[in-house]
């Protein structure tokens, strides 16, 4: 390859630069390691599930997506069992089923508190046993309030008034205000240290697409947590997700992990 050529015209100053040659020089630098030169790239994908949850601290508030089993990040919840993290507060719509996912985490004595709207079902035996034994505390939050408190946290809203629970046991200890003739209660935002979310597809920017009613709490929890970890079926090339159809933009997401199987 010829070196860059400089022409100096007697009448005008003219400089011609051979870009191909410059490119060749950069190629040499890269492959001979003459400089630490590489293409910068956002890549939120994590190779293995242990790495995904490794730095979760004890005492964390963990937002866990899912409505029943649909959208529940079962593998991420179970991976937490292998870490040292304990004394966790779990925020989820339900309190676990059978012996897997959240129920397994509770059975492993990692959870000290559950914030949820509907802890009881035929299968929530593990939670009920711990609750009866006084090993776990429960804060019941109306389902819509749970969602809106997390939205407020993600949205930077300091709090809001809702008519839900006004005049009931769940609203009686709260600040009240009559607005347009209707009694409301004041609710504070609910922020998470961690969000564990189950979704369908992601790209390396962390853009997320969900499946059917498994979407549920995923989008709001992604917004409301400091560290958002998403378990997906596949990570596609950047640009493959239709921008019109991305449900959670990657700005809200920190780590994506492909679920095996």
């Amino acid at each position, binding site marked *: 390859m010829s070196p860059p050529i400089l022409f100096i015209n007697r009448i005008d100053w003219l400089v011609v630069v051979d870009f191909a040659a410059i490119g060749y020089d950069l190629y040499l630098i890269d492959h001979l390691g003459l400089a630490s030169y590489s293409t910068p790239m956002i890549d939120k994908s994590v190779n293995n599930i242990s790495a995904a949850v490794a730095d979760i601290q004890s005492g964390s508030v963990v937002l866990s997506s899912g409505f029943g089993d649909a959208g529940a990040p079962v593998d991420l919840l179970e991976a937490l069992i292998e870490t040292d993290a304990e004394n966790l507060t779990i925020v989820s719509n339900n309190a676990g089923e059978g012996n897997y996912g959240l129920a397994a985490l509770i059975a492993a004595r990692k959870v000290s508190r559950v914030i949820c709207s509907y802890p009881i079902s035929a299968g929530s035996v593990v939670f009920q046993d711990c609750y009866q034994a006084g090993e776990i505390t429960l804060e019941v939050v*109306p*389902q*819509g309030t749970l969602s809106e408190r997390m939205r407020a946290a993600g949205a930077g809203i300091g709090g809001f008034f809702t008519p839900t629970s006004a005049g009931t046991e769940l609203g009686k200890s709260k600040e009240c205000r009559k607005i347009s003739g209707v009694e409301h209660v004041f609710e504070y935002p609910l922020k998470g240290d961690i969000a564990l979310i189950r979704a369908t597809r992601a790209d390396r920017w962390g853009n997320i697409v969900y499946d059917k009613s498994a979407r*549920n709490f995923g989008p709001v929890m992604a917004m409301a947590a400091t560290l958002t970890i998403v378990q997906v079926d596949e990570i596609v090339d950047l640009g493959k997700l239709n921008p019109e159809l991305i449900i959670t933009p990657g700005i809200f997401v920190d780590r994506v992990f492909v679920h095996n199987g």
Partner: protein
Amino acid sequence: MTAVLEKIGLTRPQVAWRIAQEIDEGSYVNLGIGSPEMVANYVPTDREIVFHSENGILGMGEAPAPGQEDGNLINAGKKPVTLLPGGSYFSHTDSFVMIRGGHIDICVLGAYQVAENGDLANWATLDTSKPPGVGGAMDLAVGAKRIFVMMDHCTKTGKPKLMNKCTYPLTGSRVVRTVFTDLAVIDVTEDGFVVREITAGVSFEELQEKTDAVLTLSENWQTLAPPDV
């Protein structure tokens, strides 16, 4: 020889049928978990209704054929459903915008008790041995344009469920519009319970005996006699 008491009153499917007749075409309807889910089975075939599910579905259809269940497509009761053409999925927060923001036309809920001022008690009894849970009931109670309650007129031990004042913890205050029981269709008005329909074979006096609040018989009251469904 045991005496067999003939059960008077509608079956649950018949109450569900009656409620379905009350829903206008084009309504956006949320059905609470349990018995209210049956209402979807009796919507007249010439009427198009959009069913909403709190976990993020509009245009919810009936249960899929066995073997066709999709674990990611479930209703509020965690049972598999299908999606009708025109249906959509959305986040939980958006779902509760629809609920709390007054966009749902009718919500059908079960109940422990309903008071004559429309107070609703359907999320907890006085039994504190089990952990409490509320789900979306309180949001639905305050947000739906009309709350229909579907319930037995009395408990299994014969105690009234339509009350002067609820004794169980409230879900919402002054929220119920109409109560549909096995014995009657009763509206909540400024003057308390007004009876619109009474099941065939039941007298107004019997109905009043089974109710712990004053009942007024509507001037235009009718007999409730649904088909065998």
